């Protein structure tokens, strides 16, 4: 199955792809922190950051449409956070500021994940002596997200093939059952994965 959001790495032969993963990871992290520290009226700085990102995107030779699609997938999170700021005084200005800031940060992460394999990022974290529990959790999460997505897809397809009524209540009810089943299956799989890890010498 295809995972438009999860399968983010796009193989290309570009200068950005060739950069060491550590450089890209540090660069993206510094960029995010710099964006966060920018003052509210620093529109010039925002513009410079945006142009820098666009230049990097162009250098990476990843089609603009693909990058935009990925950004739009994650944009609702930024939008959700920014919408909250509308409730305060001077809200619209804060809304625009938060949205621009978050979009820049998200775009840098989209670029990082599109030009660097996730396993390379994990290696960098490992070498930088990041807590091993964190790295292992990230590795397992990345590995099993695909499986989980496939499982949801299969269950929904199976449900659809046996759904004959158009009643909305039925759809909600069967969706709830699918989600409940998924919880049970995931927890059972977690137990089996842990057993498989122990079987090959993990923390014995």
């Amino acid at each position, binding site marked *: 199955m295809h995972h438009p959001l999860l399968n983010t790495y796009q193989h290309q032969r570009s200068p950005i792809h060739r950069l060491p993963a550590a450089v890209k990871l540090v660069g993206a992290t510094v960029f995010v922190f710099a964006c966060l520290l920018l003052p509210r009226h620093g529109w010039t700085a925002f513009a410079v950051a945006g142009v820098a990102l666009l230049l990097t995107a162009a250098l990476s030779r990843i089609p603009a449409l693909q990058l935009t699609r990925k950004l739009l997938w994650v944009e609702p999170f930024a939008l959700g956070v920014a919408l909250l700021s509308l409730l305060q005084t001077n809200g619209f200005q804060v809304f625009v500021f938060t949205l621009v800031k978050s979009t820049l940060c998200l775009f840098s992460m989209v670029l990082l994940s599109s030009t660097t394999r996730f396993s390379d990022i994990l290696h960098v974290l490992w070498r930088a002596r990041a807590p091993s529990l964190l790295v292992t959790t990230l590795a397992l999460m990345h590995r*099993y997200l695909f499986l989980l997505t496939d499982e949801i897809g299969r269950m929904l397809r199976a449900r659809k093939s046996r759904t004959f009524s158009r009643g909305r209540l039925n759809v909600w009810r069967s969706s709830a059952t699918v989600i409940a089943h998924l919880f049970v299956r995931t927890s059972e799989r977690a137990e089996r994965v842990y057993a498989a890890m122990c*079987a*090959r010498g993990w923390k014995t």
Partner: protein
Amino acid sequence: MNALEVQGLSYDYADGTPALKDVSFSMAEGERVGLIGPNGAGKSTLLLHLNGILPEHPASLPSVRVFGTSVAEPHLTAIRAQVGLLFQDPDDQLFCPSVWEDVAFGPQQLGLSGAKLSDRVARSLAQVGLSGYDERLPHHLSRGEKRRVCLAGLLACEACLLALDEPSSDLDPRGRRELKELLKKLPVTQIIATHDLELVVEICARVIVLDQGAVVAEGPTSSILNDESLMLAHGLDRPHILRHLHPH
């Protein structure tokens, strides 16, 4: 000394359902034994006992011995290096981000690193016919390829007892044939839980029939699998291949 010694092994699931009842058998070094039985007979549960994944709370008197060592603390680390367990679902076993890392996982736990580790991984991948798959992602592999990567992970640990749970279940005919040749070539003791009775006929000299958690028959493959009434009584069938095995 026997490679595997199981003596009076019983196990109940957490809800109290008996899974294994007084199971006893042994395997000589280098022997290849088929473990057959209907669904829910306890085959997978039995295999999980062979390297101490089960029971969760080990009894004071261990029922399983591998090369004379009891499967219990403080020997579990050594036992898990000796016993390679192939899980029924390859996705449970492939938990690392790339093929190379997954095959390297076991040897790394054993303290291998650098060139030795790379050599071991390359050799194991070559053994299962997957050289060059190092950077592939597990979720991009076919079921058959996943199964072979799992097997490479066990070979990389240089286990001396392989406990294989349904090793041929996801393989196409070519993959199955290659698996059969590979298992035949491996000079290690193997216990193979499977419904693939033809595979058992082809590579196992002896079989153990498990039903409702108990050993109901044990002996040479041809005599057990040719016993039609025994096979039918335990949810099995006389394999087609045996019906046509006659001298020309």
